[in-house]
């Protein structure tokens, strides 16, 4: 069952002066539960494509359908709502809310969705066990290591059980041990919760763990390889 359908997506920046084709005619389909990596050199359009899939950016032309919803039909507020219900984000710089504890960060999106307290607590405990930070729930991000912060960020993204997690260079700022731990965690959650993971990265550690690798060069798909 496809959860993402991209139809001839282009994204042109600086259209009126010197146009830059960040994404150039990308078409692809991603199925539910896939573990996909979008790779490519810097400036190849990885992050732009990920942002378009996540509804953070709009394509210049083409159509993107996420979980049966054509994103071009949604206005800004509807897009925010759509992201809250269907997508989870993991950022390169973790981007946790510094004034909230690890626990509060994890349950934040669930809270925005209006989930009940008991439900939130149960899910946070479940995820805390998974990410191995049960004893750090009352800790604020500043007191956590980079790896721990990124694990909290993954838990935040996963908490409301979205169908799709979009991760932009999630291991870029992590040491090897933390990066492998995080990848193990995401692979496990991908297996157990059937969550679709899409990474943009040029980290070999991530690429080697992905089951599908889409290689972007100059905004175009150069290869789309499944590596089972």
């Amino acid at each position, binding site marked *: 069952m496809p959860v993402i359908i991209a139809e001839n997506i282009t994204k042109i920046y600086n259209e009126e002066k010197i146009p830059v084709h960040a994404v150039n005619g990308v078409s692809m389909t991603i199925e539910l539960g896939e573990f996909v990596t979008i790779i490519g050199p810097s400036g190849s359009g990885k992050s732009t494509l990920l942002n378009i899939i996540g509804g*953070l950016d709009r394509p210049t032309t083409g159509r993107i359908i996420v979980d049966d919803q054509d994103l071009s039909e949604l206005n800004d507020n509807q897009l925010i709502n759509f992201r809250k219900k269907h997508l989870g984000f993991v950022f390169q710089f973790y981007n946790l809310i510094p004034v909230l504890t690890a626990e509060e960060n994890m349950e934040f999106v669930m809270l925005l969705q209006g989930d009940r307290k008991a439900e939130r607590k149960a899910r946070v405990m479940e995820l805390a066990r998974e990410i191995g930070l049960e004893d750090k729930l009352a800790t604020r991000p500043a007191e956590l290591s980079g790896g721990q912060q990124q694990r909290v960020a993954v838990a935040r993204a996963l908490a409301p059980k979205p169908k799709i997690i979009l991760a932009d260079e999630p291991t870029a700022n992590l040491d090897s041990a933390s990066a492998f731990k995080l990848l193990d965690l995401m692979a496990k959650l991908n297996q157990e919760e059937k969550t679709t993971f899409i990474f943009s990265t040029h980290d070999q550690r991530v690429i080697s763990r992905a089951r599908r690798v889409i290689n972007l060069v100059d905004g175009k798909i150069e290869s789309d390889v499944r590596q089972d």
Partner: protein
Amino acid sequence: MIIKLAWRNIWRNRTRSLVIMTAIALGIVAALFLDAFFMGMMSSYVDSGINKVTSHIQIHAPGYLDDENIKTIIKSPGMTLNAIDTMSEVKGVSSRILVYGMISSSRTSQSILVKGIDIDRERMVSDLEPYIVEGQFLSPSSRNKIIVSSRTADKMKVGLGKKIVVTFQDMEGDITAGLFRIQGLYDTGNNGFDEFNAFVKKEDIIRTMFPSNPPEYDPDHEIAILLNDKSEVGRMQYLLSKTYPDLDIKTYKEISPELSLYESQMDTMSWIYFIIIMLALVFGIVNTMLMAVLDRYKELGVLMSVGMGKARVFGMVLMETWFLCLVAAPIGMLLGYLVISYFNARGIDLSGWSEMLEEYGMLVFVHPEVSSASFIRLTIILVLTASLAAVYPAWKAISLNPLDAIRKI
């Protein structure tokens, strides 16, 4: 969670928040003090008007206030007086004979209102006696004695114990005169009042008005009533009007419209002080909140990326502004209350401007006073101020593009 987030956000930059909270608290102290100061001035003016001139309610024969004719007297004033005296709301009631005429010394003369008073009853409604600065107040044993202001005495170049002649038109329309000796000099600080009022015993003025044929009852022109509670004035006027439909019953606001105007003007002025001070604060709050929003530009982008709607972001910034005010307001109000209480007990000496103040009938010692209405008014304005100050920063927050914000380092 949004409330928790907003609350914690205001403490992220403790110094910045404390600075603006201090500014808000001081603004509140200033606003309250200014309000209390002018309220104190207003009260002194109104209360002095009530205690010296109008009382809370005055009763006259119909038409008396139109031409102040000496012949327009209250019928059976004694019965009315005694009946009113039994009412629980009434603190004191007194009747007066009012005679407009001239007083003359050997040097000069001037127009005057001579009030024939019942000494004991008058003490219950007006506070003239404490203002005697020389000599004594009228006593039951004194005969043909008069109390004038020291200002009048100076003008007429007379002093204590000196004789002055009071000339006026009697009940028949003929000119009559009485000789009085000055028993006391008073100084209320209200020049307008002092220059125009003199006091004699009722029986002394009656003798002059009716030298050969005194009436069976006192030819009173005015019954003055002082209530226990000023706020009962309207209800008491209604009650008395029902009981005495053939008499003209007026409140101090009707007798002396300037008192009422002054009261209502002070109310308006109070709103204006609050609004001006709070408007000045708006800019400080906007600046603080704008910095707070711009500092968290990236974080706000993340919040919107993960699904926090614009309304919630707007609400969060609004709440942060309210919290700043919510912390500062009670401190400012308490501080303001303490400052006002201190000065209320001590009074503020404005004797440097005594001449000008006395000209306007105001006392030189102001006792600032604050009412619960001021606190309610301030709370309303503060909520509006905070909301107004939050609009621009909140709008700035929701206008950001989440993607641009996240990319910001």
